[in-house]
């Protein structure tokens, strides 16, 4: 048994125990015969709910083909610890990586263009350690690997984007749900700022449109929105544990707009309250209207 398999089975075993019903979640996931657009899974083990969410969408094999190079893109933007909920939950990230390898991925890459010092962000978020343990190639952003990409979008004509994400066979977006001063919330589409090069703070002048422009060229095979802990104030970097709410939830889907639209509801708001979601819907990037979507909600007691 190699290290990766061992860790995976150890994680699964741990997850099973903490879910309280043994390997219940696998059975629940197996029920998901009908196709669904969005899955929201609630439970105390991040590993278990992530595994269950992917299973409910048809399993990782639906998204990752044998031999694929996969980019798993978490939010590692801030020098904060997992409890502070500014970066994606490291267990969720590790689980996705494990599932990718299980589905036959050749290599899983993890990176983010951070806001704070990258070394601290990678280390303090716990993501570098968990992703490496899961066998991913964790690298810091290499400035030589940005390339001007023609977007011809609503706000951006061209912008330097990270070639490794454009060249990957599959991209899995693993953002975290938080508040944000301008965007309102930062969810899936906002996470693409982490692959934008250049003097990117300028995009805040037309933030929503810019995010939609970038979301147009990066087509994730799967989005897993981490809401294990969410920041309800002082986002997107937080720092005050009183602003953190534990929702023990992940939301997964294949439609960037739909996942974000559902994500908004975690904060007691609606999809159309978020500029980027509304614009993305209007230009046909995805579906905002939750009533048109098949949503499956799973809860571990």
């Amino acid at each position: 048994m190699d290290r990766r398999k061992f860790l995976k089975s150890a994680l699964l075993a741990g997850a099973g125990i903490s879910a309280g019903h043994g390997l219940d979640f696998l059975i629940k996931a197996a029920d998901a015969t009908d196709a669904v657009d969005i899955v929201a899974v609630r439970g105390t083990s991040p590993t278990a709910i992530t595994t269950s969410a992917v299973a409910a969408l048809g399993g990782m094999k639906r998204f990752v083909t044998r031999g694929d190079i996969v980019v798993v893109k978490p939010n590692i933007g801030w020098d904060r610890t997992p409890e502070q909920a500014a970066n994606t939950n490291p267990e969720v990230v590790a689980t996705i990586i494990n599932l990718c390898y299980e589905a036959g991925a050749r290599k899983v890459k993890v990176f983010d263009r951070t806001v704070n010092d990258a070394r601290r962000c990678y280390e303090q978020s716990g993501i570098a350690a968990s992703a490496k343990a899961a066998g991913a190639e964790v690298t810091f952003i290499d400035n030589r690997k940005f390339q001007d990409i023609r977007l011809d979008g609503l706000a951006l004509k061209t912008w330097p984007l990270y070639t490794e994400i454009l060249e990957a066979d599959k991209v899995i977006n693993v953002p975290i749900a938080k508040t944000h001063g301008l965007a309102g919330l930062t969810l899936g589409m906002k996470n693409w700022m982490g692959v934008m090069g250049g003097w990117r703070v300028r995009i805040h002048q037309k933030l929503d449109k810019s995010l939609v422009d970038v979301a147009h060229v990066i087509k994730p095979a799967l989005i897993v929105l981490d809401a294990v802990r969410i920041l309800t104030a002082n986002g997107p970097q937080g720092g005050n544990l009183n602003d953190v709410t534990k929702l023990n939830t992940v939301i997964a889907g294949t439609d960037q707009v739909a996942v974000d639209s559902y994500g908004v509801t975690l904060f007691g708001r609606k999809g159309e309250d978020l500029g980027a979601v509304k614009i993305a819907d209007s230009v046909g990037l995805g579906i905002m209207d939750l009533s048109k979507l098949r949503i499956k909600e799973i809860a571990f007691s």
Partner: protein
Amino acid sequence: MIVYRRISQGLFLLIFCFLFVQTESKGGDELGYPVKIFLDFDPLLSFAAFLSSHTVPSGFYLALILLIATLVLGRAFCGWVCPLGTLHTMVSALKGKNSPARWYRVKYYNLLFIIAASLFSLQLAGIADPLSVLIRSFSLSVYPAFNYAVRGFFDTIYSLDIPHVVNVSELIYRGLQRTVLSFGQPVFRQGFLIGLIFIIILALDFVDKRFWCRSLCPLGALLGFVSRFALLKRSVNNACTSCGRCQKICPSGAITDEHGNARIMECLYCMDCDDLCPQGSISFGLSGGSKFVAMNVGRRNVVSSLVAGIAAVPFLRTTPISATNRHNPKLIRPPGACEEKEFLKKCVRCGECMKVCITNGLQPTLVDAGAEGIWTPILVPKVGYCEFRCTLCGQVCPTGAIQRLSLDDKQRTKIGLAMIDKGRCLPYSFALPCIVCEEVCPTATKAIWLESTLVADRAGKKITVQQPHVDLELCIGCGICEKQCPVLGEPAIYVINSGESRSRDNQVLLS
């Protein structure tokens, strides 16, 4: 002995370089290596800081160990350990003919100047201390240049994109990145000046072998003074044929004549003469100690040096900056820095804090802190901000000029305050949305808050923007807002040093 000496010099140089490269964050809260240990052992820095500030630096007792070692072994530190001395040994090897010691007295005047000034509260030891010189030169100039050269080389191959070659070169590059290269390209104002001084210091070895060690080094002078009383003594016996070989190879010019007589304070204890003497008449041992030459540094010169050191105090202090640091709002000191006067008494300008600063924001001053404050660290937020959860500068400071802070204390320590320039700010002056300063503000409750305001654009259309405000109670002056402000050149939000925790008077708020 020559072989052992070279091994010792090489080993200590390697240790020095290893610790130097480790003076960099890996992402954790601690560095994990005693990177300042060479400075801790330096008695000149410890005593000068002690004399001027009347506080005991953390390395004081280690420095005592070096003094005691010198009482036993003489100036063996200079000959066998000092990494700058080793570099001088290497450069001096390129100079053929040895010359007699001519300016060897100067270093004693340097030392006396430094001690006199320190006694009267002006601490300039670090400017001329060899370990300070070396770390400062490496940190601010040599290492950045080395990084630039290596990066440039591999980036060129990368951009040429020759198949197969790139794979190999990138493999080597990654190996170098993991070992000897810095995380990012370090940049320092005055890097050129400090590098130039360093090159001159080394190039002087072509005038006299180990010119710095024999003529300028104040630490060498201090250890030389102590080594007068050393137990290990050099002696020449009667077998000497006065061939004069020892005089020709003596790197410090301590041997004054062909009979092997030497000035004991000048001897670096390299023991090359012992090895080279064809008669085997030179030896180092606990007994004996014949034939050493008395030395006269000149009473008038001694008095002049002391007077110059004392006179330097008012000369350097009569500036507006010394009167109050309010005159330079950009004099933003690192978190944990002592109150300015105290800080200058303690800071030995080694550059460790600038080397370790995670964002490269700590830069050397030139005249920003007055002539007295040359090469002390200030934060230049446009280059790099103070990372909220980083405490490294306080960890590497050898004298406590920057106090080591706990993470909690660090996050409460104000180094200045952010001010908004409404005339440049996008939501205030240009009806454009922007919240970047608020977004990056790291305090738990953000010091920058937003006010939704209705503004009109040129066509009279009403737009809601969020205008930033600074809560002066909460702002710690870290400068990330200034660094990230999209308004380039002169950012629309900038940090001034007013409000800094270390000062009683440089305050804006009534408290």
